[in-house]
C-alpha cells in the first residue's frame, strides 16, 4: 500500500485503491470487489470497520469516521463521499 494519496487524486484512482484495499481484507474472493456491491456483503460492515477507516485515514490524510462506511456502504458511494470530504477538510485547514 502506498503511504499517502497524491494531491491530484481522481475519483477513479480513489475507487481503485478502495477496491484493492477491501480485497486485502477479504483475500479469498474469486472476483475483484464490485464497487456497486454493499461492503457488508464482504464482511466489512461492523467488525473490521475501525481498522479499515484507519487505513483510509492514513492514506488520505484526513479524519474519517468508521460510520462513513455505514452511511456510504459501497466502494462507489464511499469514494464519492471521501473525495468531497477530502476537499472540504483540506480547504478548512488551508
Amino acid at each position, binding site marked *: 500500500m502506498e503511504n499517502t494519496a497524491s494531491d491530484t487524486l481522481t475519483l477513479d484512482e480513489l475507487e481503485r485503491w478502495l477496491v484493492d484495499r477491501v480485497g486485502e481484507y477479504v483475500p479469498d474472493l474469486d472476483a475483484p470487489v464490485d464497487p456497486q456491491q454493499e461492503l457488508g456483503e464482504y464482511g466489512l460492515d461492523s467488525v473490521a470497520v*475501525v481498522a479499515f477507516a484507519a487505513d483510509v485515514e492514513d492514506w488520505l490524510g484526513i479524519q474519517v469516521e468508521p460510520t462513513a462506511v455505514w452511511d456510504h456502504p459501497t466502494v462507489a458511494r464511499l469514494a464519492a463521499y471521501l473525495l468531497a470530504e477530502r476537499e472540504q477538510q483540506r480547504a478548512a485547514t488551508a
Partner: protein
Amino acid sequence: MSTSELAAEVDLWSRPGGPFDPALLAAHDEAETFPAQACAALDQWGLPDHYVPGRHGGRLERLDEVHGLLRAVAARDLTVAVAHGKTFLGTASVWAAGDSAAAASLARHVLAGEPVAWGLTEPDRGSDLLSGEVTAVRDGSGWRLSGRKWPVNNATRGRFVCVLARTDPGGGPRGFSVFLVDKDATPRGTVRHLPKVPTHGIRSADISGVEFRDARVPAHALIGTVGGGLELVLKSLQLTRVACVALSLGAGDHALEIGRDFLAERRLHGRRLADLPHARAVAGRAVARQLLAEAVSFTAARAAHEVPEELSTVSAITKALVPTLVQGQLRLVGELLGARSFLTGVDGYGGFAKIERDHQVVGIFDGSTWVNRSALATSLPALRPGRRPRPGTGRPVREWLRADHEPAALDLSRLGVMPRRDSVLGALGELVAALTAEPPGGADRLAARLLDAHGDLGTRIAALRPAAGLPATATMRLAERYEWCFAGAAALAVWAANPQAHDRPAWREGLWLRGALALALEGLGTRPPEANAVFDELGRLLLSDDGARVSLFGTPVEVSA
C-alpha cells in the same frame, strides 16, 4: 449527600432488622424474591438522583462519584447494587442521544424512583447486536414493536424499557433504532412479561424478559435517529461499561473484609493463619488485584470526562480486565477461607459464597470479557504505532488523575467509535522516565520491563494484517497484552498524579504500585522475581490496622453538594 454518607447509611441499614440485614438478603436470595426493602431504602436516600445528569435536574456530574456510590452498595450486597444500578444503564442511551425533550421526560420519572430496563439481549442471539429480531415498523406518526427481549434485568419491574429494534428489515449497522418504551402507555395486552429466569448468582434480581406483540408506541419513543441505534448503543455501552466495574470493586471490598477477619482470627497448628507466609502471599495477591482494578477503574472514570474520544478502547479494556481481576481476587480469598468459603450458615462467613456467585454476572453483562476483548482486538490497527498522532486536545494524564482534580464536564457528544490515540498508554515512556528519577522501592525495575513489553506489543500490532470477520486468536492475545500494558500504565499514571498520597500506608515505598506492576507483568507472561516479596508486604498491610479498608485513596470521592 456524599459517597461516604451513603456508605455509612448502608452500614446502618445492614444491622439486624434493617433493609440490608444480611439475613434478610440471604433469605431473598434463597427464595429468589426481589430485595424490595433495600431498593426502597436507596430510593429514599436519593440514589436515583445520581443516575440523572445535572442538566436534566439530577445529580450525575462525575463518573468517579457514580463509582463511589455503586461500590458502597455493592460492598454490602452485590445483588442489590445490580438490581438498583440497572436504571443507570437503562437510561444511558437517552442521555447519550442528546435529545432534550426525551431526556427531560425520562429524568422526571427516574427522579421519582421509576426503574428503567435496557433491552438489548434476545433469545439465542448472543452478543451480536446486528442479529436482533425485535422489529419496529412505522404506524402513522408512531411505531409498532414486535418480538422478545430476554434475559433482561428489570424487564418486569421496570416501567420503562429502552429497546434496540430493527427498523430496516435488511438490518445492518444502519438498520436499527433505539426506542424508550413506557409500558404503562402501551395498549393493553400488547406487552407481555416473560417469567423470571432462575440464575446461579444474583438470584433475587428481576432477570426476566418482555415480549412486544404489535405494541404501538408514539413518535417520541424514538431516541436519536432512525438507523442510528447501533451507533447510539455502542456509545452508551462505553459509559455503562465504565460505570458497572464499580460493582466489581464493591464485591472485592466485601471479600477482602471477610478474608481479613478470617486471617486474623483463624489458628492452624497453633499459629495464626496470618503468620503463615503462604497465606500472607495469597492475601497480598488478592490485595494487589483489588488495587490494580481500582487504578484502572479510576482512570477510566476520569477518561470519560477528559478524553471521551478514547473511551471506545478504554471502556473495552476496563470491562474486560476489572471483573476478571476481581473474580481472581475472590478465588484467592476463597482459597484462604477454605471450607468456610463454601458454607452458608457460618456466622460472618456465610456471605462469601454469595459474593462469588453474584459477581460472575458482572463479567457477563454489558458485553462479556470476550466481547470487549474482541472489540479492542478489531480496533488495534487504529492504535498502531506511527499513525500520525493528532494533537492532543486536553491536559496530560498525570494532571487529570490527581485525586482532587475537578474533571471536565461530561460531554457525551464527544464519544466516538474509533480511537485515534491512547493518552494513558501513550504516556508510558515519560511515566517510566519520571519514576526512574525517583524510584520508589524498586518499582522502576518493574516499570522498565513493562516498557519493554509495550515496545514489543507495538511491533506486533504494526505487523497485523488486514482481516474482515472475527479477530484471529493471535489478535485476541495481542488485545489481552494491550489490556495488561494499559493497566500497568494506568497504575503508573495514578502514582505520578498523586504525590500527596505517597506517604499513605499502601503507597509507601511504592507498595501498591509494585504489586500492580508485578501483576501486569505476570499477565504479560513473565514472572518478576520480586513478586512474592511484594505480595507478602501487601498481605502484611491487609493484616495491619491500615488494612481495614484497602483502597487507593482511603475515602471515596466526595460528591459535591
